[in-house]
Protein backbone atom coordinates (compact mmCIF):
# COMPACT_ATOMS: atom_id res chain seq x y z
CA UNK A 1 0.00 0.00 0.00
CA UNK A 2 2.65 2.51 -1.01
CA UNK A 3 0.16 4.58 -3.00
CA UNK A 4 -2.65 6.56 -1.46
CA UNK A 5 -5.98 5.04 -2.36
CA UNK A 6 -6.89 8.13 -4.37
CA UNK A 7 -4.01 7.62 -6.75
CA UNK A 8 -4.87 3.97 -7.02
CA UNK A 9 -8.38 4.63 -8.16
CA UNK A 10 -7.28 7.12 -10.74
CA UNK A 11 -4.49 5.01 -12.06
CA UNK A 12 -6.89 2.14 -12.46
CA UNK A 13 -5.44 -0.33 -9.99
CA UNK A 14 -7.72 -2.31 -7.82
CA UNK A 15 -8.32 -0.83 -4.45
CA UNK A 16 -9.54 -2.70 -1.44
CA UNK A 17 -12.26 -1.26 0.66
CA UNK A 18 -10.27 0.96 2.93
CA UNK A 19 -12.27 1.89 5.92
CA UNK A 20 -11.88 5.10 7.84
CA UNK A 21 -11.46 3.00 10.95
CA UNK A 22 -8.46 1.25 9.49
CA UNK A 23 -6.78 4.61 9.12
CA UNK A 24 -7.68 5.44 12.68
CA UNK A 25 -6.15 2.18 13.83
CA UNK A 26 -3.01 2.91 11.86
CA UNK A 27 -2.61 6.30 13.47
CA UNK A 28 -3.44 4.86 16.88
CA UNK A 29 -0.75 2.22 16.63
CA UNK A 30 1.83 4.98 16.17
CA UNK A 31 1.07 6.48 19.57
CA UNK A 32 3.20 4.73 22.16
CA UNK A 33 1.63 6.38 25.17
CA UNK A 34 -1.86 5.41 24.07
CA UNK A 35 -0.78 1.83 23.51
CA UNK A 36 0.83 1.81 26.92
CA UNK A 37 -2.47 3.05 28.38
CA UNK A 38 -4.37 0.34 26.57
CA UNK A 39 -1.98 -2.38 27.74
CA UNK A 40 -2.12 -1.20 31.35
CA UNK A 41 -5.90 -1.17 31.19
CA UNK A 42 -5.92 -4.69 29.80
CA UNK A 43 -3.67 -5.79 32.65
CA UNK A 44 -5.97 -4.12 35.19
CA UNK A 45 -8.93 -5.92 33.64
CA UNK A 46 -7.16 -9.27 33.71
CA UNK A 47 -6.04 -8.60 37.26
CA UNK A 48 -9.59 -7.83 38.39
CA UNK A 49 -11.67 -10.26 36.43
CA UNK A 50 -9.39 -13.25 35.96
CA UNK A 51 -7.00 -12.76 38.88
CA UNK A 52 -9.36 -13.84 41.66
CA UNK A 53 -9.67 -17.34 40.17
CA UNK A 54 -6.02 -17.92 41.01
CA UNK A 55 -6.41 -16.74 44.58
CA UNK A 56 -6.60 -19.41 47.28
CA UNK A 57 -8.59 -16.99 49.46
CA UNK A 58 -11.61 -16.56 47.17
CA UNK A 59 -13.86 -18.68 49.37
CA UNK A 60 -12.07 -18.03 52.62
CA UNK A 61 -13.82 -14.84 53.63
CA UNK A 62 -12.95 -13.70 57.11
CA UNK A 63 -10.30 -15.49 59.12
CA UNK A 64 -9.86 -14.58 62.79
CA UNK A 65 -6.54 -16.46 62.86
CA UNK A 66 -4.88 -14.11 60.45
CA UNK A 67 -5.90 -10.54 61.18
CA UNK A 68 -3.65 -7.56 60.51
CA UNK A 69 -0.85 -9.52 58.96
CA UNK A 70 1.85 -7.59 57.17
CA UNK A 71 2.65 -8.70 53.62
CA UNK A 72 4.22 -12.14 53.67
CA UNK A 73 4.57 -15.14 51.43
CA UNK A 74 1.07 -16.51 51.95
CA UNK A 75 -0.62 -13.09 51.93
CA UNK A 76 1.33 -11.00 49.41
CA UNK A 77 -0.37 -7.78 50.41
CA UNK A 78 -1.18 -8.73 54.00
CA UNK A 79 -4.61 -9.06 55.58
CA UNK A 80 -7.10 -6.60 57.01
CA UNK A 81 -8.81 -6.40 60.39
CA UNK A 82 -11.10 -9.32 59.51
CA UNK A 83 -8.28 -11.46 58.25
CA UNK A 84 -9.24 -11.10 54.60
CA UNK A 85 -6.49 -11.29 52.00
CA UNK A 86 -5.90 -7.74 50.73
CA UNK A 87 -4.69 -8.84 47.29
CA UNK A 88 -7.86 -10.85 46.65
CA UNK A 89 -10.00 -8.04 47.90
CA UNK A 90 -8.12 -5.61 45.67
CA UNK A 91 -8.94 -7.74 42.65
CA UNK A 92 -12.60 -8.07 43.60
CA UNK A 93 -12.77 -4.32 44.29
CA UNK A 94 -11.34 -3.74 40.83
CA UNK A 95 -14.31 -5.59 39.34
CA UNK A 96 -16.70 -3.27 41.12
CA UNK A 97 -14.81 -0.07 40.39
CA UNK A 98 -14.34 -0.87 36.71
CA UNK A 99 -17.95 -1.99 36.33
CA UNK A 100 -19.22 1.17 37.97
CA UNK A 101 -16.90 3.33 35.88
CA UNK A 102 -17.82 1.75 32.58
CA UNK A 103 -21.49 1.35 33.41
CA UNK A 104 -21.79 4.98 34.48
CA UNK A 105 -20.01 6.05 31.31
CA UNK A 106 -22.38 4.02 29.11
CA UNK A 107 -25.44 5.48 30.78
CA UNK A 108 -24.11 9.04 30.67
CA UNK A 109 -23.05 8.75 27.03
CA UNK A 110 -26.39 7.27 26.05
CA UNK A 111 -28.43 9.94 27.81
CA UNK A 112 -26.08 12.79 26.87
CA UNK A 113 -25.69 11.59 23.30
CA UNK A 114 -29.37 11.15 22.57
CA UNK A 115 -30.41 14.39 24.22
CA UNK A 116 -27.50 16.32 22.68
CA UNK A 117 -28.28 15.12 19.16
CA UNK A 118 -32.00 15.84 19.55
CA UNK A 119 -31.37 19.30 21.00
CA UNK A 120 -28.81 20.20 18.35
CA UNK A 121 -30.74 18.84 15.40
CA UNK A 122 -34.24 20.05 16.18
CA UNK A 123 -33.33 23.26 18.01
CA UNK A 124 -36.19 25.45 19.14
CA UNK A 125 -38.32 24.31 22.03
CA UNK A 126 -36.69 20.85 22.39
CA UNK A 127 -33.28 22.49 22.55
CA UNK A 128 -34.50 24.96 25.15
CA UNK A 129 -35.98 22.29 27.42
CA UNK A 130 -33.03 19.91 27.23
CA UNK A 131 -30.32 22.52 27.58
CA UNK A 132 -32.03 24.40 30.41
CA UNK A 133 -32.33 21.16 32.39
CA UNK A 134 -28.66 20.53 31.64
CA UNK A 135 -27.78 24.05 32.74
CA UNK A 136 -29.64 23.61 36.02
CA UNK A 137 -27.85 20.33 36.69
CA UNK A 138 -24.53 21.94 35.85
CA UNK A 139 -25.05 24.84 38.25
CA UNK A 140 -25.41 22.37 41.09
CA UNK A 141 -21.98 21.32 42.33
CA UNK A 142 -21.54 17.64 41.52
CA UNK A 143 -20.01 16.28 44.67
CA UNK A 144 -22.54 17.67 47.19
CA UNK A 145 -25.31 16.53 44.86
CA UNK A 146 -23.86 13.01 44.85
CA UNK A 147 -23.56 13.13 48.65
CA UNK A 148 -27.20 14.09 49.04
CA UNK A 149 -28.37 11.39 46.66
CA UNK A 150 -26.16 8.85 48.40
CA UNK A 151 -27.47 9.92 51.79
CA UNK A 152 -31.03 9.42 50.57
CA UNK A 153 -30.01 5.99 49.31
CA UNK A 154 -28.62 5.12 52.74
CA UNK A 155 -31.80 6.40 54.36
CA UNK A 156 -33.88 4.07 52.18
CA UNK A 157 -31.59 1.20 53.20
CA UNK A 158 -30.83 -0.01 49.71
CA UNK A 159 -29.29 -3.50 49.88
CA UNK A 160 -25.51 -3.50 49.42
CA UNK A 161 -25.46 -5.43 46.18
CA UNK A 162 -27.91 -3.04 44.49
CA UNK A 163 -26.08 0.09 45.56
CA UNK A 164 -23.60 -0.56 42.80
CA UNK A 165 -26.24 0.08 40.14
CA UNK A 166 -27.66 3.06 41.93
CA UNK A 167 -24.19 4.60 42.10
CA UNK A 168 -23.93 4.16 38.33
CA UNK A 169 -27.22 5.93 37.79
CA UNK A 170 -26.23 8.73 40.14
CA UNK A 171 -22.92 9.29 38.40
CA UNK A 172 -24.51 9.34 34.97
CA UNK A 173 -27.13 11.82 36.16
CA UNK A 174 -24.36 14.18 37.19
CA UNK A 175 -22.28 13.60 34.07
CA UNK A 176 -24.72 13.71 31.16
CA UNK A 177 -25.18 17.50 30.94
CA UNK A 178 -21.62 18.30 29.91
CA UNK A 179 -21.71 15.45 27.38
CA UNK A 180 -25.03 16.62 25.96
CA UNK A 181 -23.60 20.09 25.61
CA UNK A 182 -20.55 18.86 23.75
CA UNK A 183 -22.55 16.69 21.39
CA UNK A 184 -25.09 19.45 20.80
CA UNK A 185 -22.41 21.93 19.79
CA UNK A 186 -20.93 19.39 17.40
CA UNK A 187 -24.35 18.69 15.87
CA UNK A 188 -25.05 22.42 15.54
CA UNK A 189 -21.98 22.89 13.40
CA UNK A 190 -22.60 19.69 11.43
CA UNK A 191 -26.17 20.70 10.73
CA UNK A 192 -25.04 23.72 8.73
CA UNK A 193 -22.52 21.74 6.67
CA UNK A 194 -23.24 21.39 2.99
CA UNK A 195 -23.77 17.66 3.06
CA UNK A 196 -26.59 18.13 5.53
CA UNK A 197 -28.19 20.67 3.18
CA UNK A 198 -27.73 18.06 0.48
CA UNK A 199 -29.67 15.48 2.51
CA UNK A 200 -32.43 18.06 2.79
CA UNK A 201 -32.40 18.55 -0.97
CA UNK A 202 -32.59 14.81 -1.51
CA UNK A 203 -35.73 14.68 0.59
CA UNK A 204 -34.42 12.24 3.18
CA UNK A 205 -36.55 11.85 6.27
CA UNK A 206 -35.30 12.94 9.69
CA UNK A 207 -34.61 9.40 10.88
CA UNK A 208 -32.15 8.81 8.08
CA UNK A 209 -30.58 12.23 8.43
CA UNK A 210 -29.94 11.75 12.14
CA UNK A 211 -28.99 8.07 12.20
CA UNK A 212 -27.06 7.80 8.93
CA UNK A 213 -25.57 11.24 8.54
CA UNK A 214 -25.27 12.92 11.92
CA UNK A 215 -24.54 10.00 14.21
CA UNK A 216 -21.49 8.59 12.37
CA UNK A 217 -20.01 12.08 12.41
CA UNK A 218 -20.48 12.35 16.16
CA UNK A 219 -19.31 8.83 17.02
CA UNK A 220 -15.58 9.72 17.12
CA UNK A 221 -16.25 12.50 19.60
CA UNK A 222 -18.51 10.17 21.59
CA UNK A 223 -15.84 7.48 21.80
CA UNK A 224 -13.19 9.91 22.98
CA UNK A 225 -15.32 11.63 25.62
CA UNK A 226 -16.71 8.31 26.75
CA UNK A 227 -13.24 6.90 27.29
CA UNK A 228 -12.07 9.97 29.15
CA UNK A 229 -15.18 10.01 31.31
CA UNK A 230 -14.53 6.44 32.51
CA UNK A 231 -11.61 7.79 34.49
CA UNK A 232 -13.77 10.48 36.02
CA UNK A 233 -16.47 7.97 36.92
CA UNK A 234 -13.96 5.64 38.64
CA UNK A 235 -12.64 8.59 40.64
CA UNK A 236 -16.12 9.77 41.65
CA UNK A 237 -17.10 6.27 42.68
CA UNK A 238 -13.98 6.02 44.81
CA UNK A 239 -14.71 9.35 46.46
CA UNK A 240 -18.26 8.29 47.28
CA UNK A 241 -17.19 4.90 48.55
CA UNK A 242 -14.39 6.47 50.56
CA UNK A 243 -17.00 8.46 52.42
CA UNK A 244 -19.07 5.32 52.87
CA UNK A 245 -21.80 6.67 50.58
CA UNK A 246 -21.17 4.64 47.46
CA UNK A 247 -20.52 0.95 47.43
CA UNK A 248 -20.50 -0.23 51.06
CA UNK A 249 -18.84 -3.23 52.72
CA UNK A 250 -18.98 -6.17 52.56
CA UNK A 251 -18.80 -5.41 48.82
CA UNK A 252 -15.30 -4.18 48.18
CA UNK A 253 -14.41 -1.20 46.03
CA UNK A 254 -11.12 0.63 45.75
CA UNK A 255 -12.72 3.66 47.36
CA UNK A 256 -13.99 1.92 50.47
CA UNK A 257 -10.72 0.05 50.82
CA UNK A 258 -8.85 3.36 51.10
CA UNK A 259 -11.36 4.26 53.76
CA UNK A 260 -9.20 2.35 56.24
CA UNK A 261 -6.73 5.20 55.98
CA UNK A 262 -9.26 7.16 58.01
CA UNK A 263 -8.19 5.26 61.11
CA UNK A 264 -4.97 6.71 62.46
CA UNK A 265 -3.57 3.32 63.50
CA UNK A 266 -4.19 1.77 60.09
CA UNK A 267 -2.82 4.86 58.40
CA UNK A 268 0.47 4.87 60.27
CA UNK A 269 1.03 1.21 61.00
CA UNK A 270 -0.64 -0.73 58.19
CA UNK A 271 0.06 1.03 54.87
CA UNK A 272 -0.55 -2.27 52.99
CA UNK A 273 -4.26 -1.70 53.57
CA UNK A 274 -4.59 1.62 51.76
CA UNK A 275 -1.60 2.04 49.45
CA UNK A 276 -2.53 -0.77 46.99
CA UNK A 277 -6.08 0.48 46.24
CA UNK A 278 -4.73 4.02 45.92
CA UNK A 279 -2.12 2.89 43.43
CA UNK A 280 -4.76 0.86 41.58
CA UNK A 281 -7.00 3.92 41.18
CA UNK A 282 -4.05 6.06 40.13
CA UNK A 283 -2.81 3.62 37.51
CA UNK A 284 -6.25 2.92 36.09
CA UNK A 285 -7.22 6.56 35.74
CA UNK A 286 -3.88 7.51 34.20
CA UNK A 287 -4.17 4.62 31.74
CA UNK A 288 -7.72 5.59 30.80
CA UNK A 289 -6.65 9.15 30.16
CA UNK A 290 -3.66 8.12 28.07
CA UNK A 291 -5.91 5.89 26.00
CA UNK A 292 -8.50 8.64 25.63
CA UNK A 293 -5.92 11.20 24.54
CA UNK A 294 -4.46 8.78 22.03
CA UNK A 295 -7.90 7.98 20.64
CA UNK A 296 -8.70 11.66 20.29
CA UNK A 297 -5.51 12.34 18.40
CA UNK A 298 -6.03 9.44 16.05
CA UNK A 299 -9.75 9.96 15.46
CA UNK A 300 -10.02 13.74 15.30
CA UNK A 301 -10.73 14.58 11.65
CA UNK A 302 -9.02 17.95 12.03
CA UNK A 303 -5.75 16.17 12.64
CA UNK A 304 -6.20 14.15 9.49
CA UNK A 305 -3.81 15.11 6.74
CA UNK A 306 -6.27 14.92 3.91
Amino acid sequence: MAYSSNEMIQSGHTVQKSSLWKEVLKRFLKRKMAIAGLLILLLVFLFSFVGPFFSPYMTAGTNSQAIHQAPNLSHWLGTDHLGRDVLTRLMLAGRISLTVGIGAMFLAVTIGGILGILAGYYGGIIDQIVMRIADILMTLPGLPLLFIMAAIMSEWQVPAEQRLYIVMIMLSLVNWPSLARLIRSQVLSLREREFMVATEVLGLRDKRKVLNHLLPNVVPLLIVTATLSVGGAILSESVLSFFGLGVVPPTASWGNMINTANTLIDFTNRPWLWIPPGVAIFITVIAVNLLGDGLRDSIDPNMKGR
Partner: protein
Amino acid sequence: MAQQEPLLSVHQLKAHFQSEDGLVKAVDGINFDVYQGETVCIVGESGCGKSVTAMSIMGLLPDTSKVEGEINLAGKDLTKLSKGNMRRIRGNELSMIFQEPMTSLNPVMTIGEQMTEVLLEHQAISKKQATKKSLELIKMVGIGRGEQIIKSYPHQLSGGMLQRVMIAIALACDPKMLIADEPTTALDVTIQAQVLNLLQDLKEETNMSMLLITHDLGVVAEVADRVVVMYAGKVVEQGTVEEIFANPKHPYTKGLLQAKPVLGSRKKKLYTIPGQVPKLVDLKPSCYFADRCEHCMKICTQQTPELKSDDSSEHKVACWLYENEVVHK
Protein backbone atom coordinates in the same frame (compact mmCIF):
# COMPACT_ATOMS: atom_id res chain seq x y z
CA MET B 1 -41.58 24.66 -27.33
CA ALA B 2 -43.60 27.41 -25.79
CA GLN B 3 -47.04 26.15 -26.72
CA GLN B 4 -47.46 23.50 -23.99
CA GLU B 5 -47.89 24.14 -20.25
CA PRO B 6 -44.63 25.06 -18.55
CA LEU B 7 -43.19 22.40 -16.22
CA LEU B 8 -42.01 24.97 -13.75
CA SER B 9 -43.66 28.30 -13.55
CA VAL B 10 -42.41 30.95 -11.16
CA HIS B 11 -44.85 33.78 -10.71
CA GLN B 12 -44.17 36.98 -8.78
CA LEU B 13 -41.67 35.22 -6.53
CA LYS B 14 -40.41 37.32 -3.68
CA ALA B 15 -37.90 36.33 -1.04
CA HIS B 16 -37.33 38.92 1.63
CA PHE B 17 -35.06 38.83 4.64
CA GLN B 18 -35.31 41.03 7.67
CA SER B 19 -31.89 42.39 8.55
CA GLU B 20 -30.77 44.93 11.10
CA ASP B 21 -30.54 47.63 8.43
CA GLY B 22 -34.00 46.93 7.04
CA LEU B 23 -35.80 44.64 4.67
CA VAL B 24 -33.49 42.94 2.17
CA LYS B 25 -35.36 42.15 -1.02
CA ALA B 26 -33.06 39.43 -2.29
CA VAL B 27 -35.61 38.34 -4.87
CA ASP B 28 -38.26 40.85 -5.76
CA GLY B 29 -41.17 39.73 -7.88
CA ILE B 30 -39.61 37.63 -10.60
CA ASN B 31 -41.44 35.60 -13.23
CA PHE B 32 -40.12 32.90 -15.50
CA ASP B 33 -41.16 29.56 -16.97
CA VAL B 34 -39.24 26.41 -17.69
CA TYR B 35 -40.72 24.00 -20.21
CA GLN B 36 -40.28 20.26 -20.47
CA GLY B 37 -36.86 19.31 -21.76
CA GLU B 38 -35.57 22.84 -21.74
CA THR B 39 -32.47 24.37 -20.16
CA VAL B 40 -32.94 27.79 -18.66
CA CYS B 41 -29.96 29.71 -17.37
CA ILE B 42 -30.14 32.35 -14.72
CA VAL B 43 -27.19 34.69 -15.04
CA GLY B 44 -26.05 37.71 -13.09
CA GLU B 45 -23.16 38.76 -10.93
CA SER B 46 -22.69 37.86 -7.27
CA GLY B 47 -25.40 39.00 -4.91
CA CYS B 48 -28.18 39.54 -7.43
CA GLY B 49 -30.45 36.80 -6.13
CA LYS B 50 -29.67 33.81 -8.34
CA SER B 51 -28.99 31.35 -5.57
CA VAL B 52 -31.81 32.65 -3.40
CA THR B 53 -34.16 31.98 -6.31
CA ALA B 54 -32.93 28.39 -6.47
CA MET B 55 -33.18 27.97 -2.72
CA SER B 56 -36.73 29.29 -2.61
CA ILE B 57 -37.79 26.91 -5.38
CA MET B 58 -36.32 24.04 -3.34
CA GLY B 59 -37.95 25.42 -0.21
CA LEU B 60 -34.61 25.59 1.58
CA LEU B 61 -34.70 29.15 2.83
CA PRO B 62 -34.71 29.50 6.62
CA ASP B 63 -37.95 30.21 8.43
CA THR B 64 -36.81 33.77 9.11
CA SER B 65 -37.22 34.65 5.44
CA LYS B 66 -40.47 35.61 3.80
CA VAL B 67 -41.24 33.87 0.54
CA GLU B 68 -44.23 35.05 -1.48
CA GLY B 69 -45.59 34.28 -4.90
CA GLU B 70 -46.26 31.05 -6.73
CA ILE B 71 -43.89 28.28 -7.73
CA ASN B 72 -45.79 25.77 -9.83
CA LEU B 73 -44.12 22.47 -10.56
CA ALA B 74 -46.25 20.25 -12.79
CA GLY B 75 -49.44 21.79 -11.44
CA LYS B 76 -48.50 21.82 -7.76
CA ASP B 77 -47.79 25.06 -5.96
CA LEU B 78 -44.63 24.29 -4.01
CA THR B 79 -45.04 27.25 -1.67
CA LYS B 80 -48.29 25.82 -0.33
CA LEU B 81 -47.15 22.24 0.20
CA SER B 82 -46.75 20.82 3.70
CA LYS B 83 -43.26 19.96 4.89
CA GLY B 84 -43.84 16.23 4.44
CA ASN B 85 -45.16 16.61 0.89
CA MET B 86 -42.31 18.93 -0.01
CA ARG B 87 -39.85 16.34 1.29
CA ARG B 88 -41.43 13.72 -0.96
CA ILE B 89 -40.95 15.96 -3.98
CA ARG B 90 -37.37 16.89 -3.20
CA GLY B 91 -34.88 14.43 -4.57
CA ASN B 92 -37.70 12.70 -6.39
CA GLU B 93 -39.37 15.09 -8.85
CA LEU B 94 -37.20 18.09 -8.12
CA SER B 95 -33.50 17.70 -7.53
CA MET B 96 -30.50 19.92 -7.10
CA ILE B 97 -26.75 19.84 -7.43
CA PHE B 98 -24.38 22.21 -5.73
CA GLN B 99 -21.30 24.22 -6.40
CA GLU B 100 -18.96 22.35 -4.06
CA PRO B 101 -18.93 18.61 -4.70
CA MET B 102 -16.17 18.16 -2.11
CA THR B 103 -18.32 19.21 0.81
CA SER B 104 -21.72 18.08 -0.43
CA LEU B 105 -21.09 14.44 0.35
CA ASN B 106 -20.91 13.07 3.85
CA PRO B 107 -17.24 12.34 4.59
CA VAL B 108 -17.94 9.30 6.78
CA MET B 109 -20.28 7.46 4.43
CA THR B 110 -19.29 5.55 1.33
CA ILE B 111 -20.46 6.75 -2.06
CA GLY B 112 -22.61 3.64 -2.38
CA GLU B 113 -24.39 4.24 0.91
CA GLN B 114 -25.20 7.78 -0.09
CA MET B 115 -26.51 6.71 -3.47
CA THR B 116 -28.72 3.86 -2.35
CA GLU B 117 -30.11 5.99 0.44
CA VAL B 118 -32.02 8.27 -1.94
CA LEU B 119 -33.39 5.33 -3.87
CA LEU B 120 -34.51 3.58 -0.71
CA GLU B 121 -36.13 6.78 0.49
CA HIS B 122 -38.24 7.53 -2.56
CA GLN B 123 -38.76 4.20 -4.25
CA ALA B 124 -40.15 0.94 -3.00
CA ILE B 125 -37.15 -1.22 -3.83
CA SER B 126 -34.90 -3.58 -1.93
CA LYS B 127 -31.37 -2.81 -0.89
CA LYS B 128 -30.00 -5.19 -3.51
CA GLN B 129 -31.95 -3.52 -6.30
CA ALA B 130 -30.84 -0.12 -5.04
CA THR B 131 -27.20 -1.18 -5.20
CA LYS B 132 -27.73 -2.46 -8.72
CA LYS B 133 -29.37 0.80 -9.72
CA SER B 134 -26.47 2.74 -8.16
CA LEU B 135 -24.02 0.84 -10.30
CA GLU B 136 -26.07 1.69 -13.39
CA LEU B 137 -26.16 5.34 -12.35
CA ILE B 138 -22.39 5.46 -11.89
CA LYS B 139 -21.99 4.00 -15.35
CA MET B 140 -24.48 6.53 -16.68
CA VAL B 141 -22.42 9.48 -15.45
CA GLY B 142 -19.38 8.05 -17.14
CA ILE B 143 -17.30 6.62 -14.33
CA GLY B 144 -15.81 3.17 -14.76
CA ARG B 145 -15.16 0.59 -12.04
CA GLY B 146 -18.44 1.20 -10.29
CA GLU B 147 -17.89 -1.63 -7.81
CA GLN B 148 -14.85 0.15 -6.42
CA ILE B 149 -16.39 3.58 -6.49
CA ILE B 150 -19.41 2.65 -4.39
CA LYS B 151 -17.09 1.30 -1.72
CA SER B 152 -14.90 4.38 -1.54
CA TYR B 153 -15.24 7.45 0.61
CA PRO B 154 -15.61 10.97 -0.79
CA HIS B 155 -12.06 12.01 0.10
CA GLN B 156 -10.70 9.27 -2.12
CA LEU B 157 -12.22 10.73 -5.28
CA SER B 158 -11.33 13.83 -7.27
CA GLY B 159 -13.59 16.88 -7.54
CA GLY B 160 -14.73 16.03 -11.05
CA MET B 161 -15.63 12.49 -10.04
CA LEU B 162 -17.47 13.72 -6.99
CA GLN B 163 -19.52 16.13 -9.09
CA ARG B 164 -20.40 13.22 -11.37
CA VAL B 165 -21.43 11.24 -8.31
CA MET B 166 -23.51 14.19 -7.13
CA ILE B 167 -25.21 14.29 -10.52
CA ALA B 168 -25.85 10.56 -10.33
CA ILE B 169 -27.41 10.96 -6.89
CA ALA B 170 -29.52 13.90 -8.02
CA LEU B 171 -30.78 11.94 -11.03
CA ALA B 172 -31.30 8.68 -9.14
CA CYS B 173 -35.07 9.02 -9.00
CA ASP B 174 -35.51 10.45 -12.51
CA PRO B 175 -36.52 13.96 -11.50
CA LYS B 176 -38.58 16.07 -13.87
CA MET B 177 -36.55 19.10 -12.99
CA LEU B 178 -32.94 19.59 -12.01
CA ILE B 179 -31.63 22.77 -10.46
CA ALA B 180 -27.88 23.19 -10.83
CA ASP B 181 -26.42 25.96 -8.72
CA GLU B 182 -23.10 26.85 -10.36
CA PRO B 183 -22.26 23.17 -10.87
CA THR B 184 -18.93 23.82 -12.54
CA THR B 185 -17.54 26.77 -10.58
CA ALA B 186 -15.40 24.65 -8.26
CA LEU B 187 -14.02 22.46 -11.04
CA ASP B 188 -11.08 23.13 -13.31
CA VAL B 189 -11.73 24.08 -16.89
CA THR B 190 -11.19 20.75 -18.59
CA ILE B 191 -13.49 19.01 -16.15
CA GLN B 192 -16.04 21.81 -16.46
CA ALA B 193 -16.62 21.03 -20.10
CA GLN B 194 -16.97 17.31 -19.37
CA VAL B 195 -19.48 17.89 -16.63
CA LEU B 196 -21.49 20.29 -18.77
CA ASN B 197 -21.56 17.88 -21.67
CA LEU B 198 -22.62 15.14 -19.31
CA LEU B 199 -25.47 17.24 -17.94
CA GLN B 200 -26.54 18.14 -21.45
CA ASP B 201 -26.51 14.51 -22.61
CA LEU B 202 -28.37 13.25 -19.57
CA LYS B 203 -30.93 15.99 -19.96
CA GLU B 204 -31.60 14.94 -23.52
CA GLU B 205 -31.73 11.27 -22.62
CA THR B 206 -34.25 11.69 -19.82
CA ASN B 207 -36.12 14.68 -21.26
CA MET B 208 -35.98 16.50 -17.95
CA SER B 209 -35.76 20.24 -17.58
CA MET B 210 -32.82 22.04 -16.14
CA LEU B 211 -32.47 25.32 -14.33
CA LEU B 212 -28.83 26.28 -14.44
CA ILE B 213 -27.54 29.04 -12.26
CA THR B 214 -24.26 30.53 -13.34
CA HIS B 215 -22.25 33.67 -13.80
CA ASP B 216 -20.24 32.09 -16.57
CA LEU B 217 -21.52 33.22 -19.96
CA GLY B 218 -19.41 30.57 -21.66
CA VAL B 219 -21.48 27.97 -19.89
CA VAL B 220 -24.66 29.76 -20.92
CA ALA B 221 -23.70 29.83 -24.57
CA GLU B 222 -22.94 26.14 -24.45
CA VAL B 223 -26.02 24.67 -22.80
CA ALA B 224 -28.85 27.19 -22.46
CA ASP B 225 -32.05 27.25 -24.47
CA ARG B 226 -33.27 30.39 -22.79
CA VAL B 227 -31.58 32.93 -20.55
CA VAL B 228 -32.88 34.93 -17.62
CA VAL B 229 -30.65 37.85 -16.66
CA MET B 230 -31.06 38.93 -13.06
CA TYR B 231 -29.90 42.10 -11.44
CA ALA B 232 -30.50 43.18 -7.81
CA GLY B 233 -33.33 40.71 -7.27
CA LYS B 234 -35.15 41.52 -10.48
CA VAL B 235 -35.23 40.04 -13.96
CA VAL B 236 -33.84 42.67 -16.31
CA GLU B 237 -33.91 40.68 -19.51
CA GLN B 238 -34.98 37.30 -20.72
CA GLY B 239 -35.07 35.59 -24.07
CA THR B 240 -33.66 32.73 -26.09
CA VAL B 241 -29.92 32.25 -25.95
CA GLU B 242 -29.54 33.36 -29.61
CA GLU B 243 -31.43 36.59 -29.01
CA ILE B 244 -29.53 37.42 -25.85
CA PHE B 245 -26.14 36.83 -27.39
CA ALA B 246 -26.86 38.31 -30.82
CA ASN B 247 -29.01 41.21 -29.78
CA PRO B 248 -28.68 42.06 -26.09
CA LYS B 249 -30.91 44.95 -25.15
CA HIS B 250 -30.43 45.83 -21.52
CA PRO B 251 -27.23 47.80 -20.85
CA TYR B 252 -26.45 45.33 -18.06
CA THR B 253 -26.63 42.35 -20.40
CA LYS B 254 -24.47 44.22 -22.89
CA GLY B 255 -21.99 44.93 -20.14
CA LEU B 256 -21.91 41.28 -19.06
CA LEU B 257 -21.26 40.16 -22.62
CA GLN B 258 -18.51 42.71 -23.07
CA ALA B 259 -16.90 41.70 -19.80
CA LYS B 260 -16.45 38.17 -21.06
CA PRO B 261 -12.91 37.33 -22.19
CA VAL B 262 -12.81 36.19 -25.80
CA LEU B 263 -10.37 33.54 -26.81
CA GLY B 264 -7.78 34.75 -29.31
CA SER B 265 -8.32 38.48 -28.85
CA ARG B 266 -5.77 39.99 -26.56
CA LYS B 267 -7.08 43.23 -25.20
CA LYS B 268 -4.98 45.37 -22.91
CA LYS B 269 -7.66 45.44 -20.29
CA LEU B 270 -10.85 43.45 -19.94
CA TYR B 271 -14.01 45.53 -19.91
CA THR B 272 -15.69 45.85 -16.51
CA ILE B 273 -19.02 47.30 -15.55
CA PRO B 274 -18.19 50.18 -13.22
CA GLY B 275 -19.56 50.13 -9.68
CA GLN B 276 -21.17 47.20 -7.94
CA VAL B 277 -24.59 45.74 -7.20
CA PRO B 278 -26.51 48.19 -4.99
CA LYS B 279 -27.28 47.31 -1.40
CA LEU B 280 -30.57 45.49 -1.45
CA VAL B 281 -31.93 47.37 1.55
CA ASP B 282 -34.68 49.96 1.07
CA LEU B 283 -34.24 50.53 -2.63
CA LYS B 284 -36.18 53.51 -3.98
CA PRO B 285 -38.35 52.94 -7.05
CA SER B 286 -35.90 53.33 -9.90
CA CYS B 287 -34.00 51.24 -12.33
CA TYR B 288 -31.53 49.61 -9.93
CA PHE B 289 -28.88 49.60 -12.60
CA ALA B 290 -29.23 53.36 -13.15
CA ASP B 291 -26.10 54.53 -11.34
CA ARG B 292 -23.90 52.10 -13.26
CA CYS B 293 -25.56 52.64 -16.62
CA GLU B 294 -23.97 54.78 -19.32
CA HIS B 295 -27.39 55.51 -20.84
CA CYS B 296 -28.95 56.69 -17.59
CA MET B 297 -31.86 59.09 -18.10
CA LYS B 298 -33.89 61.13 -15.66
CA ILE B 299 -36.75 58.64 -15.57
CA CYS B 300 -34.36 55.81 -14.70
CA THR B 301 -33.81 57.25 -11.25
CA GLN B 302 -37.52 57.83 -10.59
CA GLN B 303 -39.49 54.85 -11.80
CA THR B 304 -38.91 51.12 -12.00
CA PRO B 305 -39.13 49.86 -15.58
CA GLU B 306 -41.29 46.83 -16.25
CA LEU B 307 -40.23 43.63 -17.94
CA LYS B 308 -41.92 43.62 -21.35
CA SER B 309 -41.19 43.00 -25.00
CA ASP B 310 -41.56 45.70 -27.64
CA ASP B 311 -43.01 43.24 -30.11
CA SER B 312 -44.84 40.03 -29.27
CA SER B 313 -41.67 37.93 -29.05
CA GLU B 314 -40.38 36.12 -25.99
CA HIS B 315 -37.46 38.49 -25.72
CA LYS B 316 -38.34 40.76 -22.82
CA VAL B 317 -36.37 43.56 -21.28
CA ALA B 318 -36.87 45.90 -18.35
CA CYS B 319 -35.29 49.15 -19.51
CA TRP B 320 -36.60 52.63 -20.17
CA LEU B 321 -34.54 52.83 -23.35
CA TYR B 322 -37.05 50.55 -25.02
CA GLU B 323 -40.22 52.21 -23.70
CA ASN B 324 -40.93 54.22 -26.82
CA GLU B 325 -43.68 56.48 -25.56
CA VAL B 326 -41.73 57.62 -22.56
CA VAL B 327 -38.55 58.25 -24.44
CA HIS B 328 -40.28 60.33 -27.10
CA LYS B 329 -42.24 62.45 -24.67
